[in-house]
């Protein structure tokens, strides 16, 4: 079956030739452009632009500083459940993996929240696998309500759902959601997602729309770098972000850069993205999306995270546990979704930021604002 074509607002076809450009003057002008568009982004994504990494870094740092100041926002993920029937080829908790499965009950969740609260976090992302009886929408709703008793800003990174379901979660105190398209290349997408709800490319693509219409305030998007041609995926991420900004003018949009680490066993990336390419993509997106939070997780090694903090990146996770019950340690051992590379604790990480002249910001939002948002006129 030939995949349906990408909608006009997303399709980056016309700019793809620029991602192979070797015209150094054009690349240099793109980096220094005051009003970059797809054309300039494509040039900055080209392999030839790798030569201008330092110039891109300087631009990215200046822009980040202007918009976010000398600060880095911090958050932490919390795995509610790793039950999953998904068929993602690259995932450690896919349905056909022999994984130890666990789901937090309310008492365990409260223990986790107490541990997270002691660490002073005020922003949290709750995670699950695909939609399962063990972790469905009513379970999420109740978990969000419990988490919101402890901290200000509760977000989700779960399965795509209906607008009305997002509204239920917004009413329970959820402020935002993250859903990575994984890849915007439909042929690769179909190969990577072997069965289940996730095979529906467009349902996933439109999940941020449904979430915002359902009353969430922020959406995070991204591509899992390594699955398909990353230049294509980065152009799509940019166009997706611009589309969301235009159509939901009150929504907060953020972009993350999850990457399949070449050195981790199990799944080999067809299009490996090394550290220099990752940095180049982050700089390029920062130059083209000056006002949008760019996020880097503990998947990346301390050296890369320390270097990228403030160079485009404005938000980071820390002290992450990717197992269910990982914070309080009172749950049975479960399989992690992916291995984290930065295992530092909060004081170690904050000391690093302070030494770089960056203030760690734990709280940047208040629960007094916790009403479902209304993006459309009633």
């Amino acid at each position, binding site marked *: 079956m030939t995949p349906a074509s990408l909608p006009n607002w997303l399709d980056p076809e016309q700019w793809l030739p620029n991602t192979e450009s070797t015209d150094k003057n054009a690349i240099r002008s793109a980096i220094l452009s005051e009003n970059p568009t797809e054309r300039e982004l494509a040039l900055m994504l080209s392999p030839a632009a790798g030569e201008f990494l330092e110039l891109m870094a300087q631009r990215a740092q200046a822009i980040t500083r*202007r918009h976010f100041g000398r*600060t880095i926002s911090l958050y932490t993920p919390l795995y509610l459940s790793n039950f999953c029937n998904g068929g993602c080829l690259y995932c450690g908790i896919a349905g056909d993996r022999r994984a130890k499965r666990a789901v937090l009950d309310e008492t365990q969740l409260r223990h986790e929240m107490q541990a997270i609260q002691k660490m002073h976090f005020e922003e949290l992302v709750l995670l699950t696998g695909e939609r399962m009886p063990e972790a469905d929408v009513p379970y999420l709703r109740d978990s969000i309500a419990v988490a919101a008793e402890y901290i200000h800003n509760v977000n989700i990174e779960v399965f795509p759902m209906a607008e009305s379901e997002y509204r239920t979660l917004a009413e329970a105190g959820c402020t935002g959601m993250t859903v990575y398209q994984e890849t915007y290349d439909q042929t690769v997408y179909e190969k990577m997602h072997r069965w289940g709800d996730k095979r529906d490319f467009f349902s996933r693509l439109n999940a941020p729309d449904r979430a915002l219409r359902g009353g969430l305030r922020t959406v995070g998007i991204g591509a899992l770098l390594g699955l398909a041609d990353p230049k294509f995926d980065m152009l799509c991420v940019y166009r997706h972000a611009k589309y969301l900004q235009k159509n939901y003018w009150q929504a*907060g949009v953020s972009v993350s850069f999850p990457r399949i680490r070449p050195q981790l066993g199990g799944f080999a990336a067809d299009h490996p993205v090394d550290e220099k390419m990752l940095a180049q993509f982050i700089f390029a997106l920062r130059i083209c999306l000056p006002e949008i939070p760019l996020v880097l997780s503990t998947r990346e090694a301390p050296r890369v995270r320390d270097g990228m903090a403030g160079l485009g990146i404005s938000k980071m996770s820390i002290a992450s546990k990717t197992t269910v019950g990982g914070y309080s340690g009172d749950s049975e051992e479960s399989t992690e979704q992916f291995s984290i590379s930065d295992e530092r604790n909060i004081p170690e990480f904050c000391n690093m930021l302070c030494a770089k002249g960056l203030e760690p910001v734990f*709280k940047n939002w208040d629960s007094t604002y916790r009403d479902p948002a209304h993006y459309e006129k009633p």
Partner: protein
Amino acid sequence: MSDTLKIGDQELNSRLFLGTGKFSSSQAMIEAVKASGSELVTVALRRFNRAQAEDDLYGPLAELGNVRLMPNTSGAINAKEAVRAALLGRELSKSRIVKLEIHPNPHHLLPDPIETYEAAIELVKQDFLVLPYIPADPVLAKRLEDVGCAAVMPLGAAIGTGKGLSTADMIKIIVRDANIPVVVDAGLRAPSEAAAALEMGCDAVLVNSAIAVAENPAGMGAAFKIGVEAGRAARLAGLMPTSEVAMASSPLTSFLSSND
């Protein structure tokens, strides 16, 4: 001669207000506030941290005796949320001054005039000294004065852009028509721009990014202090009028009044 700035029942000797976000540490922020001589600083309620974590801004500021805190409602996307934030801010800071700030778009942070107007009416009723952050719109400024705001704070340019007084023409109209203090908020990059705002008759300026993001924030705070003082002194001294044509310094028509 004393030249205090009166905003409602508040009297201030410094015409430089500071924002407290974007600094590399609370220590850097405190040093900049001290160097700037500012007596009024604004703190976002969303940054107030009950847990007293490393990023708490209220604690260190409260220790500065001569500095008044003005909570702001940044993060609110509508009037209802801003009113709730203001009430919570008053409870925490014990200050009835509020910087009313409603920017529903989290990317450019430009103020929503409609929600701001509605929130201002409610907050004035609830006995706040309301300082709304607004687009540089002379009509909106008068509407807010009419409903009882203590001052208006038009933007010079969008927050964090450092584009200076790009709305100068509108700000001049606001100043000309206002019976309440006018404070330029947002967009300023250089002390010379702060001086220009005071020269054009603004009563004060509020600066954050330009100081927080400078290589030496305390040094930049001190520089803005001088800029504001210079601009104010020039305004009081009376600037010579500008003209498109040259003016002879000796009058050409003096012969008409001579009796010879």
